[in-house]
């Protein structure tokens, strides 16, 4: 194969099947997204706690991303479709980095693919809000607002200072540092729509308030911090919406998403997410 600057085609090597990473879309068997980054666990960082932390944050992103991907070809307008796909892609990228770090920290020889495609439902540690299906666009933006405001604050805490164990891990801190910039876009996108619809017509206001009321029982599980809570209150005020006072969705035998106990929605997501990898173990696509 010969080429020079004048005819160099950036896509040319897609046709080159001799290397292992000449694929464009996401699938399995990709190169380690943390390749070349020091994988050791620094002294003073509890490896088991780090693995658990990265797994939980990675699962939130993976499952939420999958829910957003389901809006592709179904969004009300092309601009929203593009926005949701971009947000889903950011979260998928965060999930890959976090699951890879979780696999390094647990030290059992697994990788991101094995964690994503070959774990059972009870081994997933995402909050139950992440797995919820959006019934309409109002629920979509309400859920995205709560989720991204919460996640942004979580990641800001990770980057704030050396932080408590295991957040002092430099790889987790670097992942969080990148994610903070992305989550700010996600949160602002959702906030703009919640305000537009909440402070819109009587009909859009009613739909927006109903969406918020519907998902609020799942918000308790997040343990919203002061900054995220204050941001949500400011958005609700601007949107003329009432912060719901509904009771939290009850744990099952004392357990919630972080303990591996999920809602009915989770099984359907995993069936869709994992079926190809499980039907063809070891295949790459």
């Amino acid at each position, binding site marked *: 194969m010969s080429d020079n600057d004048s005819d160099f085609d950036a896509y040319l090597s897609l046709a080159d099947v001799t290397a292992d990473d000449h694929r464009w879309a996401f699938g399995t068997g990709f*190169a380690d997204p943390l*390749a070349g980054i020091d994988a050791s666990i620094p002294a003073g960082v509890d490896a088991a706690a780090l693995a658990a932390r990265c797994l939980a944050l990675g699962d939130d992103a993976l499952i939420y991303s999958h829910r957003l991907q389901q809006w592709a070809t179904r969004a009300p307008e092309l*601009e929203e479709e*593009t926005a949701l796909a971009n947000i889903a892609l950011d979260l998928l990228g965060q999930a890959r980095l976090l699951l890879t770090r979780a696999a390094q920290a647990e030290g059992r020889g697994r990788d991101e693919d094995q964690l994503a495609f070959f774990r059972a439902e009870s081994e997933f540690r995402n909050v139950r809000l992440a797995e919820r299906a959006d019934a309409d666009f109002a629920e979509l933006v309400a859920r995205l607002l709560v989720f991204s405001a919460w996640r942004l604050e979580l990641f800001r805490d990770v980057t704030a200072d050396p932080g408590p164990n295991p957040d002092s891990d430099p790889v987790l801190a670097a992942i969080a540092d990148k994610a903070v910039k992305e989550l700010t876009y996600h949160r602002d996108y959702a906030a703009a729509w919640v305000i537009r619809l909440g402070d819109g017509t009587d009909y859009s206001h009613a739909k927006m308030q109903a969406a918020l009321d519907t998902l609020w029982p799942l918000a308790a599980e997040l343990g919203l911090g002061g900054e995220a809570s204050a941001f949500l209150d400011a958005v609700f005020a601007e949107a003329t919406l009432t912060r719901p006072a509904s009771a939290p969705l009850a744990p099952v035998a004392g357990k919630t998403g972080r303990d591996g106990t999920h809602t009915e929605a989770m099984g359907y997501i995993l069936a869709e997410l994992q079926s190809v990898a499980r039907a063809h173990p070891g295949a790459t696509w």
Partner: protein
Amino acid sequence: MVSAWEMAASVLDPELPALTIADLGILRDVRESGGAVTVTITPTYSGCPAMGQIAADLRRRLGEAGYRDVAVRTELSPAWTTDWITPDGRRKLAEAGIAPPGPRPVPVQLTVVQLTVVQLTVRCPRCGSADTREISRFSGTACKALRQCRACLEPFEHVKEH
């Protein structure tokens, strides 16, 4: 023989093929030792799907240039910012009809709902008018927003400050 840095710096970005990875600030470091080269790149956004492609292009380019042992490593920190796009890169963006980013806005302490960070002027790459509006903060790739010019009505993409 062309240096390893020059070879690596000539690799084009798959999503913005008017620019090289050096123009975009994705190429962070190239180290040469004997016949071995280690190239360090950084992703723009966490989910950038082009990283594998860029690494493959780097290995191919350097391999064809005679380097037998090429390693491509990733670096996450410090996080990529549009401030690393070179002046040459900004010129090439504008020539390709994509408005280049302005300086990254300084983060402000959040006291009220701040939906729009300081709106800097984004000029239309077609007619140069500063009278443009944001249609969507997201566009065909993660790093771009979609805008439209009010003067000439041209829709265009803008590499958003990040």
